[in-house]
């Protein structure tokens, strides 16, 4: 799976978690929390959905790697191989 496909997977999950928000114009280099109304429970939802939908585990110490879209893609792409 390439980086573009992983980005789409992450975007689909964020869209389902941040239900009331428009995620179509995200800046990949800016922290997700600065662009969307996401709190700690939302990040746990994102981690849970990665596990449920794609069997991808994100250990707690790696949560900071999910800060921006590009850091998500960089961190998760190897896990989707």
């Amino acid at each position: 799976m390439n980086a573009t496909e992983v980005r789409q997977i992450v975007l689909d999950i964020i869209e389902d978690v941040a239900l009331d928000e428009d995620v179509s114009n995200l800046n990949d280099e800016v922290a997700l929390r600065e662009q969307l109304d996401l709190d700690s429970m939302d990040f746990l939802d994102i981690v849970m959905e990665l596990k449920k939908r794609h069997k991808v585990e994100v250990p707690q110490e790696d949560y900071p790697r999910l800060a921006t879209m590009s850091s998500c893609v960089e961190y998760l792409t190897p896990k989707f191989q």
Partner: protein
Amino acid sequence: MTSQTWTTQPDSYRIVITGIGLTAPNGNNLSEFRKNLLEGVSGLDWMEVRHMGRLAAGNCDFDEKKYQSRKMRKRGTRAGAIGIYCAHEALLDSGRTIEEEERDDVGIYVGITEHGNVETENEIHELYQNDLNTEFWSHHHNPRTVANAPAGEISLNLGVTGPAYTVGAACAAGNLGLIHGAQMIRAGEVKWAIAGGISESTHTFGIFAAFNAQGALGSDEDPAKATKPLDKERNGIAVSEGGCLYILETLESAKQRGAKIYGEIAGYHVNSDATDFVLPNNERQVQCMNKAMKKAGLEAKNIDVVSMHATGTSLGDIQEAKAVREVFDHSDNTLINATKGFIGHCMGAAGALELAGNIPSFEDSMVHGCKNIFDLDPECEMKGLVTKGHVNKDVKIILNNSFGMLGINSALIIAKYEN
């Protein structure tokens, strides 16, 4: 003349109702609910219940998104959504808003029969879909199932920073929420309160299954007739959801604001049977009603309306009828009604909703009757029982009964406010 005690108290001690927000299976606000009670409109219908199939139940159709974002609704519970809707409706009705400088001084007291069954059942259902792998168990489970969840969701939504918690009192909880709210205002803990009761019980199959196992789940070919309180052929309750929250404040603050006053808390009493987990005890029910009247300085003949708990179970209705006869049989003034034939048993919301359905009688001078009494059980006969339709009467005092499992009884007396 009565020797009513509440009117002798200072305005700063007298507690009045200045707003009502509700959702019932047959109405999403007080005027709709009242109209349907007067016109005999049922709120019961078929519902698919997990593991059990089609059963009669009472569900509400208010707009969950009216006061809550989609994300917060998904994160929270149905009980929280009901509570948030009712709280906003009550605030709008009262003309009150949550001001920054006073949000510490507002209390939220929500009566509940139970909480957490719905979410726990959902998680266990998911667990079985996931081969019993607990790694998929949701981190939302704990915040959704803590006993204060519905009140906490309301405080988060409104930004209220005063005390917000639930009052667990089985099916007496609606009355208990109101009573507790009044007590906290009088104790000086809060300046005003959002108080009442809510229920999400139709979303847990366990409650249906348990009433069924107890032989107390009502049924009929017509879902609207599934529960028939006081009728000879009654065979149990209809499980329902709902909510009713009131704005409570002192008479002093209501006067200062020029608020509309629906009624005043004239007296109440809460006691326990200490005899059985589920079977009622009419001796304690009699004591509860009598003590509530004594606290208010009233006698049976002063009570214009008794709103019964009457759930439609075989034994429960007989016991309560016996208790009501003992207290009110010598009163020529008192009319008696019961609401669950219309809306089923709204559990934690029942007491608060059934009271709300009667409060408009202070203004419209009508007493709504019961529903689904086709052949009155001779053991449930009571002088003054309005079996159907409605009766015209000048109403000044309502006594609202609400009882619950583990032997908790409550009687709440509301008086018309007259300047």
